[in-house]
């Protein structure tokens, strides 16, 4: 509809001009059409014909002349914009050739009706042409899924084959328990170095190390917060050396030293008292002694004398009591633990509910 309107508008202008010309030539005043009446010079013909709406075609000749003067002395040297090349793009074109690398948003090359920015009052956001907001934001027009697929296919030659024996994560972890993590950085600055690239993170599951109970406890004590109890993973982050390689070597060195240190038993470790224990152990504790004592006395009062301590320990009630005490001591006084403790004590002492 717009095109039609423009056409008719123009036709109207032509008619008007023709009439006036006819009048002039009859009067013998002028035999050539005045320059002002020409809709446009051929050079910027396009701008005047198609993108300027019909209304502006009706502006007077004087106005047109003024606009020519404004734009420069020689309108021929004034360049007009070519139509955006999106108009000529095929529907099935290869997009990765249009945006092969990272580039700012180019409105004439992106065939999408995008709008962005603060909308005018009761209007819509500005269109893409000459829109700074669209240039400012990062775009990923060069990293469309087909482009990435192409890149991956092309880069396949640089990859080595994955060992077929390592077909699951468990196997990977089993055969290669130590995980090293490094990060490379890129930027378009003058330097290709980034200080953060030297950081090396080393992870290992403690269960994969050959540690006995003592060694493990000692190791956990030595590494402190670097050990995660829930996942059983020891994480060592090294960044004190200037190079990544040095940090890696240092991390491996730390792990080796920790391992050997935890296997050693120093003389003073025998002085470890109950307060130094990492966790509550019921066996040989005072609680066990008291419980057995009480039970034996109960048995004695009931004239059952042939009960040994071992039998008592193996009994269900004692085991229950042990578990609940351990839970209470190691996990803290939660409601569940308390009620479990209550039940086990009742059972132990044979108190009817």
């Amino acid at each position, binding site marked *: 509809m717009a095109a039609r309107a423009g056409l008719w508008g123009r036709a109207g202008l032509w008619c008007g001009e023709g009439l006036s010309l006819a009048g002039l030539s009859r009067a013998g005043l002028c035999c050539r059409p005045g320059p002002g009446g020409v809709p446009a010079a051929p050079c910027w013909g396009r701008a005047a014909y198609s993108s300027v709406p019909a209304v502006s075609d009706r502006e007077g000749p004087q106005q047109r002349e003024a606009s020519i003067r404004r734009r420069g002395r020689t309108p021929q040297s004034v360049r007009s914009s070519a139509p955006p090349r999106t108009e000529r793009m095929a529907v099935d074109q290869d997009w990765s050739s249009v945006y092969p690398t990272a580039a700012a948003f180019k409105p004439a090359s992106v065939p999408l009706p995008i709008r962005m920015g603060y909308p005018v009052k009761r209007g819509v956001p500005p269109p893409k042409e000459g829109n700074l907001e669209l240039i400012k934001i990062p775009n990923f027009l060069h990293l469309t899924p087909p482009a990435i697929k192409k890149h991956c296919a092309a880069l396949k030659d640089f990859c080595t084959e994955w060992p077929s024996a390592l077909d699951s994560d468990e196997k990977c972890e089993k055969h290669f328990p130590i995980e090293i993590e490094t990060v490379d950085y*890129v930027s378009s600055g003058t330097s290709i170095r980034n200080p953060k690239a030297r950081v090396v993170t080393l992870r290992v599951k403690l269960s994969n190390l050959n540690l006995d109970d003592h060694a493990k406890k000692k190791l956990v004590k030595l590494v402190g917060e670097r050990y995660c109890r829930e996942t059983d993973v020891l994480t060592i982050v090294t960044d004190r050396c200037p190079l990544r390689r040095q940090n890696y070597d240092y991390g491996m060195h730390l792990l080796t030293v920790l391992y050997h240190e935890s296997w050693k038993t120093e003389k003073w470790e025998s002085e470890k008292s109950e307060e130094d224990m990492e966790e509550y152990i019921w066996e040989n504790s005072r609680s066990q002694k008291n419980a057995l004592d009480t039970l034996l006395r109960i048995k004695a009062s009931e004239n059952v004398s042939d009960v040994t301590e071992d039998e008592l320990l193996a009994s269900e009630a004692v085991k229950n009591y042990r578990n609940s005490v351990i839970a209470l001591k190691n996990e803290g006084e939660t409601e569940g633990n308390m009620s479990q403790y209550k039940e086990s004590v009742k059972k132990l002492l044979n108190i009817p509910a």
Partner: protein
Amino acid sequence: MAAGRAGAGCWQRALWLSRRCRLQAGPESYRCSSSSTALGKAVDSSEVTEEEIVLPRRKTWNKLAVLQTLASTVNRDPTAAHYMFQDDPFLMPRNAANSRLYSLSKESGRNAAKYIVKNFPQYFDKTFAEPNVPCLMPETLTPQTEGVSEEALKERIKLRRVKESVDIFDQLVQAGTPLSLETTNSLLDLLCFYGDEESTSENEEEAKKDLEEPGVNASEEKAPKRQFQRGLQSSGPRWRDNNHAERIFKIMPERNAHSYCTMIRGMVKHGAFAKAYDMYIDLLNERHKADVHTFNALIRAAPILKEKFTERWELTKEFLTHMAQQEVQPNLLTFNAVLKALRRCGGVGRSMALLVVKEMEALDIEPSLATYDHLLSIFYRGVDLPPSGIISEVLDEVEKRSFTPQDPDDANFFSTAMQVCCDLKDIKLAYRLNKGMEKGDNWKFLDMDRLNGYWSKFFSLLCMMEQIEVVLKWYKEMSPSLFYPTPKNILDLLQALDAANQLEVIPAVWEDVKQLGFTRRQELLEEFLSLMSRDQHPDEIQLAFAKCAEDIKAAHEPAGREQVPLEWTGSTLGNVVVLFSRAGRTQDAWNMMELFQQTNRIPTDKVMNEFLNCAKQTNCPEESIKLVKLAASLGLPSSHRLKSRTEEEFELSEIQKKTLESIKWDGDSSDSDSSDSDSDRE
């Protein structure tokens, strides 16, 4: 990365590498196992599965391999201009002249930057780049050693200061300081290379040449090419009699083969061919041996030294026999020089060229593109040549290989070969050639100018020989991204459209022509108009044609102060009127009719009939009366018939009838002949 544009402050995590190391030292040693042997006893994994894991060897590749592979995934974008230009509708070049200008300006900007860096190195003392990029840092161009000594001379030679070196040399000779032969020889090298002119002017010229060769292939073949071009096309400094080089050569106490060779090469390069030959005779008299480059230069000079074809060839042969006697092994450039000489030997060339190529094969020298270029020129350039199938053999060879630049003339091959295909009118050969050009890095041989020439020839051939659908497909593929059509290409395309009867595409072509800036080419406009106005088309097409006609009309009208409007010719005016009339734009058509009178042209009967038809359709009796008036005032024989038609076909008011009656007949001649032709038409 788009975010990377923000600058150095914004780093992106490129690669998050996480790998696993094994704890146990197995039978093979792995990457991380050396550091974990200390934990050897750690994990007790089963030895059986251990053996199965075969870690692949690490692959290595050169630094550019990944980038090149990624680049290979990108194809040409048919709607974009060359990658060097700004991808913006305002800044993109529109036609060949524009694109040349823009690439030149881009290069000159680069040169300006280089100039600043070279001349003001004191402002570029910081190395921002990490690691440093030496080629971006300013070079030291001022001589460091002071005084007059051999050291100072050597340094100036190294810095290519021609004048200063000569001055120091003269001072040294006057002071009686003995100079080593090597230093003098290197001074001669410098003088002969620059033809005894200061190297800065050379630099500027070099810069100019740089401009003509856009980025890719420029660096690879720049140096030798320039040297050779200088040698044969007399551009650059000429060899003057008794210049510094000759003077120094004469006062040299002792001369070795190198001094002679340098002089010969310098003389050939700067156009003193006869002198070079004399110098060569001197060299032989002194019982020295020339090197292969000298012989190459001499062979290139051979066609200029002699007049007759046979003499030229004899001289070339003489040089070749001398080479054999002096046991100089010929190289590719020798044979190319021989073939180039044979180009200027007429019939002798044709008979000998294949023998030369055979000899190359015998010596196991792989021909370069220049070899084939010379061959094609020998066999296809010139008049009345017997037909030969050598081009298809050449194409067989070219298709097999990917070429690297070896000879400065390599770059000419594809344009020459395409020209030959055009002359032979063989589209199949052209397709084969094009395939060969797109293979590997062969496209690098075409620089901006040659690229345009190559593709416009190819396109003309396509228009001539191919189906219109194929032509249009190629046109769409090539038009802005590979070349900018010349006016001749457009004419060819129009002819092809005409032959295939697909005139409805013309408005689209006209849009392109407007973009290309050919709206002021008279011959093009006439072709457009005559094709559009020849037949009657459906209404929609006629409307589109009328729009084109409007543009063409605008081109004929005064626009700017400095531009002279195009002259109307009778046929263009008539065609525009016909187009307006067929589109039903009576007013526009009448405006054009009036121009006939103003420009003193005579409308044909066909034009007037069309106009009358139009007036009848739009019911404008006024216009038809005006037409009759016009015809009468011009004294046309057909005016009577027009008048009668007007009376018959229009419902005229009384006043109009009176006006019609009152028209005076200037030429009261009979219109018998015109009525005959009219009766045919109606």
